[in-house]
């Protein structure tokens, strides 16, 4: 039971990072990334391959960050000047292509067999139980650090410029903001965070395969961010924890239903996710923790 709780909480942290990544790009500059699962996979594979080749775990995580950011720039370079719907379509395609590459480039990713035996940091020293606790602490700490940094970013002039772009990019451009550069930077940073989350996932599971990176993960994270509150890092984190708890609850709830095939139970759980997302969008689009818009700073009066 304890190990189940530790496992679930670690997963919560990993999803929280994905939610923070989506919130940065969606709540920040108003773009959507439907390829989150792809960036998640890129980070996981980057770190698994780097550490598999002998690099220390921290270097693997660094590699995931860099590869994630670079891939993010490549994917969005052609589309960021266009209307937002193009980016949605391209990122969805990107996640599918990443899955195809992971399935087919056996020399790099071992195909559908997946990569096993991914290094678990300090596992030998701490033992199984100790390692899970240590890893939970580490993931939670990383979530806290990223959350604090993104919150700081939101309140900084940079964050205000991002939100100005989200609200009206023509006006922001008119006010002298380099809209394209902000979007590129925000997307690269967001992709890097998703990739880091993937790297943490890979070393947590110690085994990854293309099946771990289904497009369904992207929908989970959209549910997390909308339920928590788009535009607010605290909301994204809260939403991620709630979504994992909701997912686990649907597992227990469907176990009680009599006379259903396993495939029907799985189908019901996925249906509940879809229904939940539609309901949140209709009933509480601002989320549990709505975005707080800070008041404009008072102008010094001309007589002072």
């Amino acid at each position: 039971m304890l190990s189940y709780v530790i496992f679930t909480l670690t997963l919560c942290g990993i999803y929280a990072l994905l939610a923070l990544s989506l919130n940065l790009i969606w709540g920040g500059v108003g773009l959507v990334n439907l390829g989150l699962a792809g960036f998640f996979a890129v980070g996981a594979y980057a770190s698994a391959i780097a550490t598999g080749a002998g690099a220390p775990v921290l270097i693997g995580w660094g590699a995931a960050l860099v590869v994630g950011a670079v891939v993010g720039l490549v994917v969005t370079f052609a589309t960021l000047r266009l209307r937002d719907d193009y980016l949605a379509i391209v990122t969805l395609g990107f996640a599918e292509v990443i899955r195809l590459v992971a399935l087919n480039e056996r020399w790099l990713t071992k195909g559908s067999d997946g990569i096993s035996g991914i290094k678990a940091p300090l596992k030998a020293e701490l033992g199984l139980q100790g390692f899970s606790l240590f890893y939970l602490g580490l993931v939670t700490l990383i979530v806290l650090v990223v959350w604090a940094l993104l919150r700081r970013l939101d309140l900084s002039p940079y964050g205000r410029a991002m939100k100005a772009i989200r609200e009206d990019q023509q006006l922001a451009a008119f006010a002298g903001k380099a809209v394209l550069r902000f979007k590129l930077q925000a997307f690269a940073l967001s992709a890097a965070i998703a990739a880091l989350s993937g790297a943490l996932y890979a070393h947590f599971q110690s085994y990854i395969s293309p099946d771990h990176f289904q497009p369904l993960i992207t929908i989970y994270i959209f549910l997390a961010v909308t339920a928590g509150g788009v535009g607010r890092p605290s909301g994204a984190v809260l939403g991620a924890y709630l979504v994992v708890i909701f997912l686990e609850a649907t597992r227990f709830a469907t176990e009680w239903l009599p006379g259903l095939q396993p495939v029907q139970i799985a189908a019901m759980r996925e249906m509940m996710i879809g229904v939940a997302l539609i309901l949140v969008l209709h009933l509480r689009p601002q989320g549990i923790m709505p975005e707080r818009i800070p008041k404009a700073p008072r102008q010094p009066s001309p007589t002072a």
Partner: protein
Amino acid sequence: MTLLLQALINGLMTGALIAVPAIGFSAIFAVLRYPNFAIASYATIGAFAAWWANAVAGLPVIPALAIAFAVTGVVGVVAEETALKRLRDNGALIVAIASIALNLVLENIVRFIFGNDMKGYDLPLARDLRFGELRIGPQQLQSLALSVVIMAAMFLFLRYTRFGKAMRAVADNPDLARLKGIDPARIAIVTVFLGAGLSGVGGVLIGLDTSIDPLTGYRVLLSVFAAAVLGGLGSIPGAVVGALALGIAEELALIAVPATYRTAVGFVAILIMLTFRPRGILGERAT
């Protein structure tokens, strides 16, 4: 040379099949201004409705296609009115996200009823037709003929009927159309019925060639997007041209890359097109 010619023929055939759901996607995009991801599940629902009519009830292909069109059209309208309509004021991206959730729900309703197993249509077996070195399957030929007929019907509808003209008017300029007394709510319903129905028919046409399962539609989705973007997002003739171009590009690329990368060709084609000519072959504007 034969290899190239065969690739060209195969490309035109698969392109013509993709064109049908691509027209559906583009029609919805042109009138309602959002990318509808739920067309994947509409294609799946169409494929299963026709499978039921054909393999269980024993109907031939053409009545089965008509049933698929009607069923998905109705499902599309009901889904749009209950799950998406009220979100239209919140912007295209929110509706798009809701359509992804809707897609997940509908796909899993199909999975709940029919399970994950592959299903095949009950079709007479026939030998490939041969023209010298070139080979064409009679089933593919029939599907090609069907998709050409469906496309022609769609163009006649848009060109000559009142609803068709009203749809084009709303797509062109919604405010002006409203001033002229065209009711946008009614046009939206007709458009969604047609768009979903065509996606459903497309799912059947693609399934006739192979077999179907609950992910049939999702696998077609990327090709449909690629066709729509290549041709110009929101342009219906563009969707046809884009689908044919994509079909040929896929077949030509498969001479050089393994067949498993078929969907990746569409993705690369989108990126190249968006870099050099973002409005697509026949589109208007992309920014």
